[in-house]
């Protein structure tokens, strides 16, 4: 029961609500107009264009390595550019650098916070970045001295007002792009910790981001709990494209290798492909029997295969062009939380809540 203290406040409040309601209905009608216009263009679905493409054969993909060493859920991982080293982070705050080929652990850091949801390998291979519930992203230069405490040289780079959900180095060790539960993404200078650019536009937690491949440079895509995937211009901070066709939180976004499209994986159990020049969704990867959300997606080197890690402990492999599933992989004993293809495409790695990482090829 509200009793307004001053009558004018009451009428102001009513007016404000009316204006907001009016704006809302206007935005809804603009949205549907947009959809109408998009539909008028003779749009084709990807699988129609790909009808004449040769089908894929049988696949034999299996676990080639199992990396054991984390004491708790593995939340994130990233490959080093040398194609064999990886960094992984877990719920208990541990960040481990492995040589996945030999399965040796090379470095380990204990973060002062739990739920380290983001980690990234620097392009030079000489540092790693990670963050999570501490709302920060920290960069740790790696050292050959086994006795050195890596935490001593740590650099605190990013500061958000909520948890860090994802981070990525740009083309050098000097800049980091981060996304956060506070709804923003930001670009930081590593050396000084200075904020170079911030990106506002998501209406809820931003869960993932991916940088566009080199030539097309200067843009990145982010996905959030507002079901939107936004493409941003790194120079101006503006959102240049936005896609909203998912029915639930977008957990993962990844560019198609040419940079002209990107895929997204969501809690609505589907993966979708969005073409940037056509400015719309061109494919959906889903099956009635798949009811658990997708946590992580990545493309094979040619972009023909899309690998998706799911919350029902499996990995589904999709034919990107034809829209069909070509394989389903088992092995993990709990949710697959992260999935990345290696830089030369020879394998992909998955991290899971069952405390292990697996390399598949």
């Amino acid at each position, binding site marked *: 029961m509200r009793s307004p203290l001053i009558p004018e406040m009451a009428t102001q409040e009513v007016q404000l609500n009316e204006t907001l309601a009016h*704006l809302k209905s206007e*935005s809804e009608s603009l949205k549907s107009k*947009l959809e109408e216009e998009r539909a008028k*263009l003779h749009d084709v679905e*990807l699988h129609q264009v*790909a009808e004449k493409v040769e089908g894929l054969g049988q696949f034999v993909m299996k676990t080639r*390595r199992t990396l054991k060493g984390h004491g708790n*859920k593995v939340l994130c991982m990233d490959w*080093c550019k*040398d194609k*064999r*080293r990886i960094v992984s982070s877990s719920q208990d705050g541990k960040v481990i650098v492995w*040589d996945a080929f*030999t399965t040796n652990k*090379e470095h380990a850091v204990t973060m002062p916070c739990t*739920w380290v949801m983001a980690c990234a390998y620097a392009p*030079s*291979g*000489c540092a790693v970045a990670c963050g999570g*519930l501490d709302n920060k992203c920290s960069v740790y230069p790696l*050292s050959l001295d086994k006795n050195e405490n890596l935490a001593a040289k740590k650099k605190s780079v990013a500061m958000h007002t909520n948890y860090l959900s994802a981070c990525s180095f*740009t*083309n050098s060790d000097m800049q980091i792009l981060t996304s956060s539960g506070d*709804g923003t993404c930001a670009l930081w200078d590593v*050396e*000084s910790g200075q904020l*170079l650019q911030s990106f506002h536009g998501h*209406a*809820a937690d931003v*869960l993932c981001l991916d940088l566009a491949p*080199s030539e097309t440079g200067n843009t990145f895509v982010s996905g959030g*709990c*507002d*079901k939107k995937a936004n493409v941003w211009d790194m*120079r101006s901070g503006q959102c240049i494209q*936005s896609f909203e066709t998912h029915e639930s939180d977008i957990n993962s976004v990844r560019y*198609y*290798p040419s940079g*002209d*499209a990107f895929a997204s994986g969501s809690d609505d159990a589907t993966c979708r492909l969005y073409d940037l*020049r*056509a*400015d719309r969704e061109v494919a959906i990867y889903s099956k009635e*029997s798949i009811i658990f959300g997708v946590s992580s997606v990545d493309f094979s*080197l*040619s972009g*023909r295969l899309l690998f998706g890690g799911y919350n*029902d*402990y499996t990995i589904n492999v999709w034919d*990107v062009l034809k829209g069909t599933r070509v394989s*389903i992989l088992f092995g993990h*004993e709990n*949710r697959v939380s992260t999935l990345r293809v290696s830089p*030369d*495409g*020879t*394998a992909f790695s998955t991290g899971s*809540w*069952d405390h292990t990482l697996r390399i598949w*090829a």
Partner: protein
Amino acid sequence: MQDPKSGVKSQPQRLVITAIPHAVTGEDIVNWLSERLLARSVGSMLAALGYIYPLQQHKRLVIRADASLYRFQTPYFWPTQQWPVEDTDYAIYLAKRNIRKKGILELHEQEQYNHLHKWMNHKWDFIVMQAKEQYRAAKERKKPDRVVFECQERAYWVVHRPPPGTVSAMDFGLERRADPNANQVQESVSTCSLIPLSRNFSRCSLFSVVSLVKYSSTYQSHDPFLSRPLPSNPWHTDDATYWTLNSHNVETPTKQRVERWTFSFAELLSDPRGRDDFRLFLKKEFSGENLAFWESCEDLKWGTAATMKEKAEQIYKTFLARGAPRWINIDGKTMEITIKSLKHPHRYVLDAAQTHIYMLMKKDSYGRYLKSPVFKETQKKAIAPEEHKFTDSQLEQNARTRRPSLSPIVLRQLEAERRAKMAAAAPVDITQVMSKLSRKPQ
């Protein structure tokens, strides 16, 4: 699934003398599921969430396709009932087990019991009373029913209080802030601003979708998941030759690698070995400054903020100023804009000039490079490794002798040393020397 006619075949479980009805083997579950749905994934989820529980290895909630026995959980204990899983109930359950088995609880259960005893001390009389009541009531049941109920209850608690070292399907991760179903007025206001007003609807949607297909087919033979990499995929054969042959600054690249340089200018530039080859070609054409300028711009864009101004000035002096030692040829307008914005340098100040030079190299130099003797020479010398044909014992040997590689830290040190050596051996740039001399105090 439990239908006696069309469901999974059930049999009585023999427990010493008594026979407990309605147990099913893991194999039968998997067979039944695979006839209708995708057996393994559905089966594992059903077990993990506690709808089906194992009788023998009760701590691991997985379905094994063998003769181990399982039973369907009673709906009372289904997670969908959404009873809040109270610590009080767990305490009662542990107390009951304590009475029944006369103090034989598992180690982790004992720890939990002690912990709950401390925290729920005020309720302890109630808990013990409840436990005794339930124990008494259970004793009045027939043995098969009692055993079944004990198994059901035990399975329920394995799901909701997982033993240490196992993982739980009940975990759902961190809370996320926003509820997408909430009626957020804020959201609609920001949506309005996101719809750019002058949207240029791409009428080339067919064209761009076709280009996705083209890209995939071009790279198909280079995708290790679709065509076998030569000599072999290191993850398959435990032989790292593939990586050594394709390392950054290898003298002779492979034929596959050289082929990729012909796919696009971006491919050529992004491969350091390709870029080196291109640089060699440009040197012969005396247009090396274009590539050098482009590389300096990249260095500026992605470099550290502290040295940015200095870098921008250096680039201006070297490439853009009148009489600059490595003057680049860009059109008048771009030059004007660039020089103007250099008064207030920021990391993207050279974007326009960089794009111009990039397009120049892409449309002009790149094409000539592909027809040049430099490239043809590289193509000719490129190696095509034979496919590895390892026997099983050789593969085992490979697995045993996996060697670590040089750390990227070491590689970076070596690279820095190499550059220092090259710089020391390079011819002196006379203009640099003159300008330095002119700045010295007289």
